[in-house]
């Protein structure tokens, strides 16, 4: 106690402390985090521009060249239908990012809204929302997704069918979208609780500060408190949470595809590629190794980045 008190000024910079700049400096010194950031940026680039870069179409089959080992023409070889594995992995990156971003965005929206409502309006909203949060978190998330997924499949398919009947818009006949909707919906429904908890905790801690109590007594609106005090304070932990959440969502998506309830073939996803690869790994290990390695890399990268961000934005434990 005394020690901390005796030298608070040591190591602080002369210029006014800027949280973000400080965090960036701390992040830069963390080699693992920078490695993670590099991989994430690379993968994002591949996800956005990948389809324009790949030498082959991810769907085009070349039955003359099936199950080829990696070569210059096919960097990761070809699969049992003669499709270029590299192109499929690249396109899988796109799937992974699409799912990760959409799911995280929905979860963030649900989570922050519920968390803010719980924090600002208190009981009974708080109690109900927290109960919901605890419950969602106490069900093994994979099983919950399985249930949600199994339950939503029929209604969504039915809805798409009626939409098509009504509008004749070909969009509604694209069965790929059923997969995506299912994955988005079920994953978002299990991913929001951490954000809700975080935002609620922030709101509560801000609300209990005397100057906010004073401001509220003077009639400051919740919206202003939210924008001016809660959002800036919650941003750091939220960023950490989102970074971790993106990685988790990617792994989860591939997990579902692996189990056959996620994005279904022919849309390439790392998970269904791994699942396919598992069946023939004795003969064609590259079919398993390529997607597994990329998924592992992505997951590790997000995990390193999230960890580094946590250290950088919450520097409490690092001194």
């Amino acid at each position, binding site marked *: *106690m*005394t*020690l901390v*008190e*005796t*030298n608070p*000024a*040591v*190591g*602080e*910079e002369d210029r006014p402390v800027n949280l973000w700049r400080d965090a960036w400096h701390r992040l830069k010194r963390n080699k693992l985090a920078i490695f993670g950031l590099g991989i994430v940026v690379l993968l994002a680039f591949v996800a956005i521009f990948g389809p324009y870069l790949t030498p082959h179409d991810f769907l085009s089959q070349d039955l003359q060249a099936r199950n080829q080992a990696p070569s210059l023409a096919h960097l990761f070889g070809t699969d049992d239908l003669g499709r270029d594995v590299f192109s499929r992995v690249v396109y899988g990156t796109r799937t992974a990012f699409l799912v990760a971003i959409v799911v995280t965005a929905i979860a963030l929206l649900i989570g922050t809204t519920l968390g803010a409502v719980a924090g600002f309006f208190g009981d009974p909203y708080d109690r109900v929302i927290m109960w919901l949060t605890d419950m969602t978190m106490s069900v093994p998330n994979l099983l919950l997704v399985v249930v949600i997924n199994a339950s939503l499949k029929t209604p969504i398919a039915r809805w798409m069918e009626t939409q098509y009947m009504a509008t004749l818009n070909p969009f509604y006949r694209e069965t790929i979208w059923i997969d995506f909707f299912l994955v988005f919906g079920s994953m978002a429904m299990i991913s929001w609780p951490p954000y809700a908890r975080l935002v609620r905790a922030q709101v509560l801690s801000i609300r209990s500060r005397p100057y906010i109590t004073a401001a509220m007594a003077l009639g400051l609106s919740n919206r202003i408190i939210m924008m001016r005090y809660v959002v800036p304070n919650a941003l750091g932990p939220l960023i950490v949470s989102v970074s971790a959440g993106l990685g988790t969502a990617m792994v989860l998506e591939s997990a579902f595809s692996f189990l056959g309830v996620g994005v279904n073939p022919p849309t390439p996803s790392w998970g269904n590629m791994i699942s396919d690869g598992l069946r023939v790994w004795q003969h064609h290990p590259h079919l398993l190794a390529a997607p597994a390695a990329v998924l592992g890399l992505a997951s590790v990268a997000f995990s390193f980045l999230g960890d580094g961000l946590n250290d950088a934005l919450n520097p409490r434990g690092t*001194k």
Partner: protein
Amino acid sequence: MTAQDTKERLLDVKGLTVEIDGRRGPAVVVDGIDLHVTKGETLGVVGESGCGKSLTMLSLMRLLPNKIKVTSGSADFDGQDLQKMSARALRKVRGGEIGFVFQDPMTSLNPVMRVGDQICEPLLYHRGMSRQDARKRAVELLRLVGIPGPEERLNAYPHELSGGMRQRVMIAIGLACDPKLLIADEPTTALDVTIQAQIVDLVKQLRSKLGMSVVWITHDLALIAGLADRVVVLYAGTVVEDAPVDALFANPSHPYTRGLLASIPTLSDAPAARLSSIGGTPPEPGRRPPGCPFAPRCPLAMDICRRDVPKLEPISSEGSHRAACFAVQKALKAA
């Protein structure tokens, strides 16, 4: 100090320098301190928070946190240098020969361990006592520090005791092995005034009963007046004045000591009188001025003060009162 009482010195610290690894390189927090404690003496160490009092005492026992290091100096305790001692030997000294009482008993006691076990620990490790014997001794100790119902208290957890009780437990731990020296680091700051007085009385009593030396660290000069035999005033990691307690209060020499004394309210002050205070703040570690560290705040500062660092020199005839101030030394020469 004359040569003959050097022998009686229980603790003799010379040129102790402590540095902290900051982001902008090492910064000196304790700057070549000399101090000593003779046998049976109570030494008061006084200074504002941040002046390096606690760090000095912690560094003696090599209890500094990772980023803070002793870079030079020695600390002889009973003829052995604590700084060079093996970790094993040092462990015997810690708790065995030097007892420590920390500032905040709430955080300094282990919250998930029974009070009795915490008192027994030094007995088990230093005295090799059996559990039963250690518990008996622990009861004695609790009684000694004035805790009623000591047998039951042994099984209490720290959070079940009041603040004063907890500090008594801390003292009991410090005293467990009849140490030659008890270092008390602001043991009363977390307590209210009546309890404070009780604790001070307790330590005074125990000292005369047990014949140990005491180092009492505090920022409270008034408290030290009734407790210490000798007082060392620290400022920004240096000793600025070292004097017998009566001499210090009768004749404070260093401008900093004078400022500190002037800021103590007394009953004779007119009710409307403003408390005096020393303007400015102490320098941050790593940003101390080139000369005397107090110069920027000193009413008597001269050119030399901003250039050179004053040494601690005797200012009384028998040499027991020393101060590190060019102005005082100059006035003395002039007289």
